[in-house]
């Protein structure tokens, strides 16, 4: 489920087809042309997707779903309020339908992540700590003297600047001189600000199925971090998730969590490993059924 131009989608498709798994990329299974019908009651959950002239695709015909985005609606011809309503309805239906399918789904997102795909790192703090990740000290305050005290403490530790960033965006600013601290204080009169330590260049790591894939040479702490990554994946139910780590004055810390990983953060070698991990995950059930129950399957829906 994604965009036919998405490089990750295309790579996974090619890898699946190279192994004789038929695939189909669709932006939104609930938007025409396919006809979607899902019946649910206490005894059964049965859906079908029908493209004209094709046999219906039933639940058991779908051997895996790879989700790159949560559905796209063409805004053409919609009034803004109606579009927002239909978007909410589509999102709600898709989330539930993905949970109803018996096959592997990457990712079978929880409602919390489905509806907040780019949540602030601060909102992950509890889970990150519990899984054993090193997290970066962060202060949220609208008190000027508290912010200044944080900056002064950093200075005493030999850290030349604090980093300010809104909780709702990825933009970050270094706060170094008096002018910038005054500007921050002016901002604090409107909203609490979030301050943290500056960090070095990010290094990305991705969990794809069972594979932990580092972009570039893994850091010396990799052996300690990988169990945390697996715990996080298990706790969230994410089979495809990426993190960014960076060196800070407090050591190596996690600085970003991507529940919808950017393929572009990884080089060619890492991408191949990621695709390998995803394909293994998506087809594990098929291989099990082929070898075990010898059931026939028509393909993977991407």
């Amino acid at each position, binding site marked *: 489920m994604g965009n036919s131009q998405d490089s990750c989608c295309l790579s996974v498709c090619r890898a699946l087809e190279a192994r004789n798994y038929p695939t189909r990329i669709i932006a939104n299974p609930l938007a025409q042309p396919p006809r979607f*019908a*899902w019946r649910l009651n206490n005894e059964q959950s049965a859906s079908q997707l029908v493209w004209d002239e094709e046999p219906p695709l039933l639940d058991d015909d779908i051997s895996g779903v790879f989700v790159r985005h949560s559905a796209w*609606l063409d805004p053409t011809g919609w009034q803004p309020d109606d579009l927002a309503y239909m978007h*909410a309805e589509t999102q709600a239906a898709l989330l539930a339908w993905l949970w109803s399918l018996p096959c592997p789904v990457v990712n079978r997102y*929880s*409602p919390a992540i489905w509806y907040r795909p780019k949540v602030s790192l601060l909102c992950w703090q*509890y889970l990150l700590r519990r899984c054993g990740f090193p997290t970066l000290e962060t202060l949220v305050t609208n008190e000027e003297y508290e912010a200044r005290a944080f900056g002064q403490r950093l200075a005493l530790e030999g850290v030349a600047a604090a980093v300010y960033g809104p909780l709702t965006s990825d933009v970050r600013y270094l706060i170094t001189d008096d002018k910038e601290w005054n500007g921050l204080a002016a901002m604090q009169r409107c909203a609490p600000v979030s301050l943290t330590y500056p960090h070095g260049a990010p290094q990305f790591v991705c969990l794809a199925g069972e594979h932990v894939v580092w972009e570039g040479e893994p850091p010396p702490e990799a052996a300690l971090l990988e169990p945390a990554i697996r715990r996080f994946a298990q706790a969230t139910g994410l089979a495809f998730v990426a993190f960014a780590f960076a060196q800070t004055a407090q050591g190596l810390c996690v600085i970003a969590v991507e529940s919808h990983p950017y393929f572009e953060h990884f080089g060619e070698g890492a991408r191949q490993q990621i695709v390998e991990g995803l394909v293994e995950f998506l087809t594990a059930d098929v291989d099990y059924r082929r070898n075990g129950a010898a059931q026939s399957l028509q393909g993977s829906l991407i």
Partner: protein
Amino acid sequence: MILVCGGLADSVTELVCARLEHCGYPYRLLDLGDYPAGFRIKWHWQGSGPSGYIAGPDWKIDLDELTGVYVRYLGPEGRKPPPNIEPGVVPAMYFEYDTGLMALLEDLSCAVVNRLDGGMSNSSKAYQALIVRQCGLLTPPTLVTNDPHAARSFYDDYNGEVIYKSLSGVRSIVRRLDQEQLARLPLLRHGPAQFQAFIPGDNVRVHTVGEQLFATRVHSQTVDYRYASREGGAVEMEPTTLPANVAESCLRLARQLDLLFTGIDLKETPEGDYYCFEVNPCPGFLYYERHTHQPISAALAELLHHGLPAPLNHERAMPMR
């Protein structure tokens, strides 16, 4: 110390404050209608849960003093826009304020009614239906479709006894699928809708507060009793008792969704079966308490003041799951 986050103009928040006052339980109101104006905050994450404080005009509480937090987020209509900010930027400011507060509440170790993550399930009624089934309650026969033929076939299967309503968190009035609506079925090709077999019987609203449960039977002739007065109908309510297995399923449902306080919509059929329609993570319980005098707000006050009982506090459910 209890923290109440909400707007005083909101009658449910007002009732919670009044009940805490009546019980003599100390609380402070973080008025989200004004927040952050008039409040001073410091929330500090330093390798563990947040420490720091929230201070109002004449009070200051440390985060580690908190035994419970009650929160009802406000829409833009309940908030005072920050001064000297361009109107176009105001929604982004509200988003920023709420995100900080959500991050704090997700990470507090005290009872939080309710954390946002558990409540997100209410944005997909069909997702909740899957959880409902796991918890041992019945879910009405449901069709989600963008196919007019499938909708018509469902209508015929249930002899025309079919309702339709929104799938998402957008509030909608539950209506019967009638001839006028049948004529509009071709519009389904533009996007999905949810249809359900009409379940006859009495509505039963269940409020779970921690491990306590309050059930209210609602007598009404209208399809959606919440809008009975609009349709010239009347509503009568009375406290009721649930069968033990249904009560246990309701509590299980609340625990599964990591919600300390819920409003669960059930219907009991003439045959005595209980169907579950949805779980509201931020229930407007005032309506039910006023009609039945059940001590829902008192139970909530106890939960917020005394914190979680040991079994509930032992290990928080994983958020984001």
